[in-house]
């Protein structure tokens, strides 16, 4: 078997999610190549070559891939991937965008968002917002798969010494072009890979009040998240949403503040190791999944939390 992993990156650094995808590839078994498609992405290729278990890194460095347009990546990956038994990428917004195009171009099914490998053709994935876990078997000769990074412990980032090969395949479908982007700037750890995440919900009442959570996050080195209600109300930007239709996180510690615990929110965080809930309503469903629940008004509890943490950290 031979597996092609498509790297997730921003042209300058390799996303940790890719190391989890390589771990999923190792669980399948076989030679693992990594494709880095982007523009001026040499540093990413170097990082990928050092990852544990990678045999070869293929680099497609061209302006056509600079913004990871799904049309162009779809054609490239379908072309490069057709000689492999498995094509894998992380289930981030880039992978979710281009990978189904790859599957359609190869006339195969895609298995989305796997959390476990049972065998080379059988995978485990959550459905119904994680309320059911399905084991699915694919009969296609090329298996096109997106991987939920929280399902697999990342391989080591250092120690490997894969060869790096430049590809000169340029696929520019000419269907779409990049206009602009608004990236949230933050020095905090990336929500998807942070060891601690603190999230606020509708109970925060407004965007300014999130500053209270930021202060706690800074003390803990935590990433910041939010419920959909908080995002919809405009308190915080969309990329902070945790849940079925936002980010899936599984940190060591997840602190939910003023979040009721709707099933769609739980879908994004219930695999966290330790869950803390702060909510003034003792009946809030979030307490059913919380390891430590504090029934309190968050406007008193959060400043106290900051003070107590300062004492012990």
């Amino acid at each position: 078997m031979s597996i092609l992993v498509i790297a997730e990156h921003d042209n300058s650094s390799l996303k940790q999610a890719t190391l989890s995808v390589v771990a999923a590839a190792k669980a399948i078994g076989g030679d693992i190549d990594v494709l880095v498609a982007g523009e001026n992405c040499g540093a990413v290729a170097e990082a990928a070559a050092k990852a544990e278990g990678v045999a070869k890194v293929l680099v497609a460095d061209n302006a056509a891939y600079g913004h990871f347009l799904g049309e162009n990546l779809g054609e490239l990956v379908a072309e490069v991937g057709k000689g492999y038994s498995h094509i894998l990428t992380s289930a981030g917004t880039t992978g979710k965008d281009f990978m189904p195009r790859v599957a359609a171009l190869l006339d195969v099914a895609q298995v989305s968002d796997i959390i476990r490998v049972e065998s080379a053709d059988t995978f485990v994935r959550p459905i119904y917002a994680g309320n059911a876990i399905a084991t699915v078997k694919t009969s296609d000769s090329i298996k096109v798969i997106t991987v939920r990074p929280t399902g697999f412990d990342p391989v080591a980032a250092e120690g490997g010494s894969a060869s790096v090969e430049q590809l000169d395949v340029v696929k520019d479908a000419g269907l779409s072009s990049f206009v602009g982007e608004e990236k949230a700037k933050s020095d905090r750890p990336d929500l998807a890979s942070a060891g601690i995440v603190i999230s606020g919900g509708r109970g925060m009442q407004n965007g300014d009040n999130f500053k209270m959570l930021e202060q706690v996050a800074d003390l803990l080195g935590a990433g910041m998240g939010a419920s959909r209600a908080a995002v919809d109300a405009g308190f915080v930007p969309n990329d902070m949403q945790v849940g079925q239709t936002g980010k899936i996180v599984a940190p060591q510690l997840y602190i939910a503040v003023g979040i009721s615990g709707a099933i769609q929110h739980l879908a994004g965080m219930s695999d966290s190791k330790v869950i803390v809930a702060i909510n003034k309503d003792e009946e809030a469903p979030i307490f059913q999944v919380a390891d430590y629940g504090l029934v309190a008004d968050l406007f008193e509890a959060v400043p106290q939390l900051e003070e107590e943490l300062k004492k012990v950290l």
Partner: protein
Amino acid sequence: MKVLVAVKRVIDYNVKVRVKPDNTGVDLANVKMAMNPFCEIAVEEAVRLKEKGIANEIVVVSIGPKACQEQIRTALALGADRGIHIEADEDVQSLDAAKLLKAVVEKEEPKLVILGKQSIDTDNNQTGQMLAALTGMGQGTFASEVVVDGDKVNVTREVDGGLMTLSLNLPAVVTTDLRLNEPRYASLPNIMKAKKKPLDVTSPADLGVEIAARLTTLKVEAPAARSAGIKVADVAELVDKLKNEAKVI
């Protein structure tokens, strides 16, 4: 221009999903079914394009058993003009759904096809992208804003790092994210009017598509239950537990 919208019948998002005791799937007997929430957003967007005078006809399509006609009628009550039901009782997976929709696209020649970004049952997030690839169209996935401008459409997408805007040649495929719009409710007079709107029934065979499930679901299980922990009395106890018991800070 003509807009095609795909709507899927799924379990209502408020229903607590239960896995069948024999682990063959999820219990759908006697549960409330509804239009997939992302598809409601797709219908709403099409209706708004029509209200702005950009779209002149909205065609809705749904694939599945006869009961899907309920969701088509809902879309008609919300403002779509005509429905197409592709009747299929078998397991129609994303790739086949995309092939069926492609056949409809070839017949109807819409300028814009709007789908939900994912359906809340299988959570696949595939069909729109597959349809775009099969028809050679550009795609604007996870859209939070759609602006039609001549023979192009600008789509702002919700991506991991924030927002990204693309310009696509028309015809194009758009898949909706939650913040694209807030769907309206159908009024009673419109529900009555919808009953008289045209709804054609067709089949995969009529469309020349052979349904071939590639994925077999071997079993469906309930997730490992997380049990409730303890309530702490105050913040000091919480911090103590996190530091000395859970050892996560």
